[in-house]
């Protein structure tokens, strides 16, 4: 009889806790993986696919699942550093041996050579190219992320990736060299 009481008591306890846990699992369910969001905000959102994933978010998901953090060339060293801090792993040099600080570029369409095939428009991940069939296309420089994805599909090779010209705001003081010119 005592054994029966014990079994009933334990069984009912198990039931109660099971119900509580079940309720909590439904009520406090975490939608998606929050770490993916955090990784995604660090990535530069060029959507270039140089990491081997179709866009920044898929790569963020891959990192969350344990992929390497050094596959983002447009992000450069600073992105790798931030990711290493977030993920608690060691910062590695960029895969592929690119230079530490990538040169920022924007696409430029040589407009007199453009045949208006719209292939680059379809390739652009951020809709930064405007144009229509048989109409000249052009790039919205402010929206271009410099991802290179439009260069490959162009059948007449009229797209160049040009480095962004420095402005007074983006110009950096040279620490090691003070420019010296001969005074006439």
């Amino acid at each position, binding site marked *: 009889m005592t054994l029966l009481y014990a079994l009933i008591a334990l069984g009912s306890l198990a039931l109660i806790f099971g119900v509580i846990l079940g309720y909590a699992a439904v009520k406090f369910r975490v939608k998606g993986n929050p770490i993916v969001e955090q990784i995604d905000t660090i990535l530069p959102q060029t959507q270039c696919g140089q990491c081997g994933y179709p866009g920044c978010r898929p790569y963020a998901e891959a990192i969350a699942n344990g992929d390497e953090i050094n596959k983002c060339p447009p992000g450069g060293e600073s992105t790798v550093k931030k990711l290493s801090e977030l993920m608690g792993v060691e910062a590695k040099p960029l895969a592929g041996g690119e230079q530490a600080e990538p040169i920022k570029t924007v696409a430029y369409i040589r407009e007199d050579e453009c045949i208006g095939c719209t292939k680059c428009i379809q390739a652009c991940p951020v*809709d930064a190219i405007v144009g229509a069939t048989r109409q000249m296309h052009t790039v919205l420089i402010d929206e271009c*992320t410099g991802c290179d994805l439009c260069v490959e599909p162009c059948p007449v090779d009229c797209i160049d990736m040009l480095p962004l010209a420095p402005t007074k705001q983006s*110009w950096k*003081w040279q620490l090691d060299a003070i420019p010296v010119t001969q005074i006439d």
Partner: protein
Amino acid sequence: MEKLLEQIKHGTVWPFPGGVHPPQQKSQSNSEKITRLPLPDKLVVPLKQHIGAHGKLIVDKGDYVQKGQALTSPTANWSVPVHAPTSGTILEIAPSPSAHPSALPELSVIIKPDGKDTWCQRQQVSNIKTIDHDELINIIHQAGISGMGGAGFPTYVKANTDKKIDFFIVNAVECEPYITADDVLMREHAVEVVQGIEIMQQLLQPTLCIVGIEDNKPQAISAMQKAAEHNEHIIIQSVPTVYPSGGEKQLIKLLTNQEVPSGGIPADIGVLVHNTGTLFAIQQAVYEGKPLIERVVTVTGNTIHKPGNVWALLGTEIKHLLDCQGFSPVPQQRVVMGGPMMGFTLPTVRIGVVKTTNCILAPDHNELAEPGDEKACIRCSACADACPVSLLPQQMQWFAKSKEYEKLQEHNLFDCIECGACSYVCPSEIPLVQYYRVAKVEIKEQQADKIKADRAKERFDARKERLEREQAERQNRHKRKPTTKSADEKQKVADALARVKPKSDKDGEKSAVAAAIARAKAKKQQGEQLEPDNSDVAKERAIRKQQARQYKEEKESQGSSESTDDKKSAVAAAIARAKAKKAAQQNSAESQDENTDSAPVDDKKAAVAAAIARAKAKKAAQQNSTESQDENTDSSPADDKKAAVAAAIARAKEKKRQKEGNNPS
């Protein structure tokens, strides 16, 4: 406040932390009067010489412009105009090297002077009391005045503040070594500067105006005191000579014991600071109608034969300034714009004087040594002692080197005024301030990148959504097509009907109603047709029922004598009814056939079959009844049976005959 005012009037100053005492080097250039340079061969006037956007260009290449004529008109975003410094022809409007350490090209108007120096139409104001606030602001704006101390903030924006200003401070400190431009300006034009102060007093209505002058400029102090004697709201305050007491926030602390909050502006604490040169320019603009086209520039350094201050037209090339003052360059000569502490080495001397150019320094190698190699930090903390903003320069240096920008921001990097005191005192010759400058640009760039990345993400998501939607639409097109089309067709038919109806009616107004009625009628008719027309079937059914009843009566009359048991008779009746029904159906078929007179053989056969059936039924019934009788009586069953059979045969025969008689085929 009362106590504070009392203290200020008493001459109290509140020293700020840190500061350095570099050699003054002012005596070379402040002994002579300001000279006027001969007109240069050409003037390069950049459109943007201040903080903010440049104005809209209103002249063209080849135009003849008069002295003081506006070259641009101000638009939005703190834009101030620039003016032609002398009369002449516009040679070109093209990008030229700018007065910036990078010398990045800036769109400039290049003017060839005609030597006549003819002024354009000027509007002079004799009494400022007669003009209102907005008009004064407009004069200052149209004169193209921006801060001439260094930063180049548009003066009209500052003067038009809606905050209550308690203290209007005139920055006449000029704490950088070598520079004496403000010093000599005050010596020679103290009256004009005080008039400029009075214009600002009218605009801002401050409680007190304090002119801060370093105690190494006694002549300027006495000149200003004399000029401001009549105005009791102006106090000339002598401040100790320490670099960087000319920093805006340092001067506010020094004169009023108030501190500008981090990230804030002086107006937040009711203080506004203007440079002496700016006030002189305001006076010239209001009383003389002269826009800002020239300024005092100190040309000094050991390689200059006649160091001193000159009135330089804006746009005068630095080379012209140097040549006029006598210049014998040394190998690897550096020419610095600004002072030795905060100035920058010019990449080329083919750069025009701008509104913020206060000094051109051409030192030889003895007076301003080339920076040596950077050595390791020895953690002497001299930089922290020198910092006027009480930052931790040494700590920030580590973070800047390792690019830990978040930590730099936590250490208030953006409160750094880039005065260079830390670099000046560093025994290891670490260019600390340059590290901070680079870090500031990097952080700003990262912030811009972040904004751009967010925008790119937004656009990418929008595009993805659009592509998905388009694909879904393409897939659904096949499915949805037939249904939508049939519905369309129905609508078209209805429309057509509606169109046809009013044509006949010729009643425009009622046509719609008529069409609706017509549609309703059509629908009703359709409905009726759809319902089965069962009047014929009902007739048939009635005939069948009648026949069945007849047959029943007949049967009952025949078998009522024999059948006594109700139960048995009921069963027999049921069977008979079933049979009768069958027969009736055949009969009805016959009746239909009667009209056509076709297939008489069939009729016959049917009749025969019916008769047989009836006979059989009767037989069965009789047997049943006889059996039941047998149970009770058991009397001569065989006789009964035989008799019944005989009767049935007889009846059948009779019926046959009758039928044959009916059908005389």
